[in-house]
């Protein structure tokens, strides 16, 4: 997270055909050296990181909405305080990540614009609605659980500012998952109606959560290069498997059923096998066809428009004070 001011305009990247520079860069990566903002980097490395970090930031910002939906209806003051803190954290995580992306030479305003116009994507998990209080528990447990699985290896990402931001995020995220599981535990051990509510939430959130790791390795377009650059440390499928193996026993403890008739323990591999996933549906939601895509972006646009006068007033106030200081000197 270093300032844009430290990056020369256009970035220091050489031509992609500069084989020597590319080889030197790859050697640094292979030696586990971190890449810092002012360093030479291939234009494609820069572009990949800007896309990934800004989409990650957008996901945090949009991710405030599904849970924010339940703040005023949280069942107790304790739950409400925790939920407010969690949603505030998501906003903070978005800001750490925007700051990290800015070190690569993209302006904050440009990223905001990409989100508001729909040019940039964000995690498709946030395009599903939060219909009941149990959804708040399921999101903390499953969505944040999956996010942590994804984010822990990113703490060792080759790009320094991204890795440092992820270390902060991971430290804070652990509270999110635990509070979610606590909500689920209370419901699962509660009345039959509460348990049914918890099961319903698991039924709706399980598949989208498992899909958060992205398309299967066989179809993942960015995977190989990102692995070579050590932006990514594990493949989508291996992280997905790790999440499933960790989560199935947690569901068993709650006495809830994972909504997958093909889910089986495989003694040979030492992992759980799952049934086929509907990737056509995943892509439909990514491309804007999910139940909440329109509303999420409409809310973001409204928040941005509603904040316009605040930004203008802050700038005018700062200019007035600067002029007064100058006159006094």
């Amino acid at each position, binding site marked *: 997270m270093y300032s*844009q001011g430290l990056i020369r305009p256009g970035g220091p990247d050489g031509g992609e055909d500069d084989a020597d520079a590319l080889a030197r860069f790859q050697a640094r990566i292979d030696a586990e050296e971190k890449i810092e903002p002012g360093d030479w980097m291939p234009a494609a490395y820069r572009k990949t990181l800007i896309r990934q970090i800004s989409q990650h930031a957008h996901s945090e910002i949009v991710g405030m909405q599904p849970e924010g939906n339940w703040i005023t209806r949280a069942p107790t003051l304790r739950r409400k305080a925790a939920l407010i803190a969690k949603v505030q954290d998501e906003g903070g995580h978005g800001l750490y990540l925007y700051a990290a992306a800015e070190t690569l030479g993209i302006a904050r305003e440009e990223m905001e614009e990409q989100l508001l116009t729909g040019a940039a994507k964000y995690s498709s998990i946030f395009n599903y609605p939060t219909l009941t209080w149990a959804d708040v528990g399921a999101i903390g447990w499953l969505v944040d659980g999956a996010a942590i699985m994804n984010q822990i290896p990113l703490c060792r990402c080759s790009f320094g500012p991204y890795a440092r931001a992820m270390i902060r995020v991971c430290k804070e995220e652990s509270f999110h998952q635990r509070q979610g599981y606590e909500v689920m535990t209370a419901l699962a051990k509660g009345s039959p109606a509460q348990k049914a509510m918890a099961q319903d939430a698991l039924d709706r959130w399980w598949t989208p959560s498992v899909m958060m790791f992205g398309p299967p390795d066989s179809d993942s377009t960015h995977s190989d290069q990102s692995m070579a650059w050590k932006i990514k440390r594990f493949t989508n499928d291996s992280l997905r498997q790790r999440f499933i193996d960790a989560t199935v026993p947690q569901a068993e403890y709650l006495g809830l059923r994972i909504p997958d008739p093909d889910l089986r323990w495989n003694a040979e591999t030492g992992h759980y096998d799952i049934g086929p996933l509907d990737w056509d549906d995943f892509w439909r939601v990514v491309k804007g066809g999910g139940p909440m895509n329109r509303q999420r972006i409409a809310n973001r646009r409204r928040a941005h428009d509603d904040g*316009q006068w605040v930004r203008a007033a802050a700038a005018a106030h700062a200019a007035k004070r600067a002029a007064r200081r100058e006159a006094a000197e």
Partner: protein
Amino acid sequence: MTEAPNTPRLPLWEVFIRPRNGLAHRHVGAVHAADAEMAMLAARDVYTRRGEGRSIWVVEARHLHASDPDDKAALFDPADDKVYRQPTHYHVPEEVGDM
């Protein structure tokens, strides 16, 4: 969604936090804000939600001067061949013990 053309972009401020007295301020990230006062408020909200700090510095990014990465060799390589600046370069007889 479009900003009024006369609204300037909010400047970038680098944020440094002293985790507790006795330790130096350390760079933690950046915020955008119209002036130092607002940058301070934003830094507090974004970077110290869990008691991470006892003191905050915000520095407008345009006031920060950094060494040029291209000068790395000229600036730092000369230190590499001056091993005589390291204590381990000097031999102390074993009988003398730790020094």
